[in-house]
């Protein structure tokens, strides 16, 4: 390597590091400030805190934060289970068959991807209320399953597409039925991809605000984004607790995302661009 390209590469890396820092500054500052008490924050307003304390996090135990967290997990896990099941079935059908019904289904998925969800939320609210689904995770789980459908289906499909049909045919000849061939050959081979699909379904559901905000209106039922939003409206000056709650909310998202980030192009491209 010549000196010239060496400097160029590292210079570029330095520039990118600065850009990454600037881009993520809001999150970084939030995380740092969550380690200061509200009094310290209001008093000093330093960008980098002078002293650290976990007081805000301890304080969260006196708030409904952990109720919200539990609700978020219930909702996200439920929606993930539904979405992934639908994605496996639909993705496999789209990958292996061609007919008018499948074309119509693809189009429907594309439409859902662009659909103004408010359009369905108003009637759904009226539909769900007599069923007792308002303030119940059921309503949100159902709607999330549909909202996630395009992305997870396309992503699952792109994994099934990488598994040659002939493997299944070989299994049929070796003595499997269609369903057994799917479970013994296709599913094990698409394992990592489907794990990624599940994590994305979880992330989307965990992060979502709008739908939850419409259906979950009492504090017992709220997920984290809705609950913290309430908190933000009511105690807009308690920055310490707010930032601690937000930081803690963000943590699972970041960790899960790091696991699946290398799969993301698959889904984004398959969904957004090819579709």
């Amino acid at each position, binding site marked *: 390597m010549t000196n010239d390209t060496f400097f160029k590469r590292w210079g*570029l890396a330095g520039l*990118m*590091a600065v850009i990454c820092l600037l881009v993520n500054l809001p999150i970084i500052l*939030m995380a740092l400030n969550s380690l200061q008490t509200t009094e310290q924050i209001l008093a000093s307003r330093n960008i980098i805190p002078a002293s650290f304390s976990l007081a805000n996090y301890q304080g969260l135990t006196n708030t409904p934060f952990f109720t919200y967290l539990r609700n978020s997990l219930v909702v996200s896990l439920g929606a993930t289970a539904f979405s992934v099941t639908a994605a496996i079935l639909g993705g496999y059908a789209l990958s292996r068959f061609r007919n008018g019904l499948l074309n119509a289904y693809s189009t429907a998925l594309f439409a859902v991807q662009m659909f103004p969800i408010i*359009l369905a939320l108003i009637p759904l609210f009226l539909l769900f209320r007599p069923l007792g689904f308002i303030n119940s995770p059921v309503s949100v789980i159902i709607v999330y399953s549909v909202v996630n459908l395009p992305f997870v289906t396309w992503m699952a499909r792109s994994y099934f597409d990488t598994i040659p049909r002939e493997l299944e045919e070989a299994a049929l000849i070796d003595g499997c039925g269609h369903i057994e061939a799917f479970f013994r050959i296709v599913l094990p081979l698409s394992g990592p991809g489907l794990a990624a699909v599940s994590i994305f379904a979880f992330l989307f559901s965990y992060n979502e605000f709008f739908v939850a905000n419409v259906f979950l209106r009492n504090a017992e039922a709220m997920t984290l984004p809705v609950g913290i939003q309430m908190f*933000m409206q009511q105690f807009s000056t308690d920055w310490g607790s707010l930032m601690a709650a937000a930081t803690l909310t963000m943590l699972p998202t970041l960790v899960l995302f790091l696991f699946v980030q290398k799969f993301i192009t698959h889904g984004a491209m398959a969904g957004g661009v090819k579709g």
Partner: protein
Amino acid sequence: MNAALDTKEASAWRIRARQFLAPEFVTPAILLAPSILLLLVVIAYPMLQGFYFSFTDGLLMKSGDFVGIANYTKLLSQPAFWHSLRFSAIFAACNIVGCYLLGLGLALLLQMDMPGRGAFRVLLLLPWIVPSLVSIVSWRWMVNDERALFNQIITLFGGDPIFFLSDSNWAVTIVILIKIWRSFPFMMLSLLAALQSIDRSLYEAAAIDGATRWQSFWNVTLPQIKNISIVLCLLMTIWSVNDFDTPWLLAQGGPANATENLVVLAYRYTFARNDVGMGAATSFITLFVLMALVFFLLRLQRRS
């Protein structure tokens, strides 16, 4: 003669019936059945019902009477509606331009050879992946009051602090900035994938033909990513118009209704003012606006 025709028709019908019963049709139909059911229950049926609601004067707790197009005419006569429409358009346009420039620039940078490239790519995706609520909390802290970070910087340079969230123009600016910050990573990621799929030999051919870097960007890169760019802009448009989280979480459409887009307006009508008819009408207008935009952009793409 007639009998012959009959049997011919009957056998054609039998062939068609067999096609529908063939495993190639039945298997995918079974696989899709649950999802299709879900789509019908959660999207199709509510949509039809919502369409009906937009012609009634129903309340959240009480279904209303048919009022014809009264909701629509009323809506079109309200300044608030026109304001929302204008804001939605500005919001979408600024978001697309901002995301595209930022996304393309960063994608081009990320395409170059450097140490730690994978890590930078991941880091730049974070604004997109964190929950909307978290991003709003973090931004609000930077613009909230006269001693927030932005104002500290402004005063450092001798300016007067700005009340970003209570000044209409500034609130609009900030909400657009946040939206760009939240959505450029998708643009960047998709453009990066598009850039990486361009055949290297095109650049080599251009270089042999004596093209400068700028010329090869202009003549090779841009034409190659043009179609994908149009599709991305289409998606961005739709997602911007549909966005509720950013304007609502930042200032609940305020100050006054400065950052109230069509979706927030529909939400307001329905859930704050208890007017299901107006809410449904507003959301349908949103859909019509979107469909017109999609149609227009697709025409644009087809023409090129």
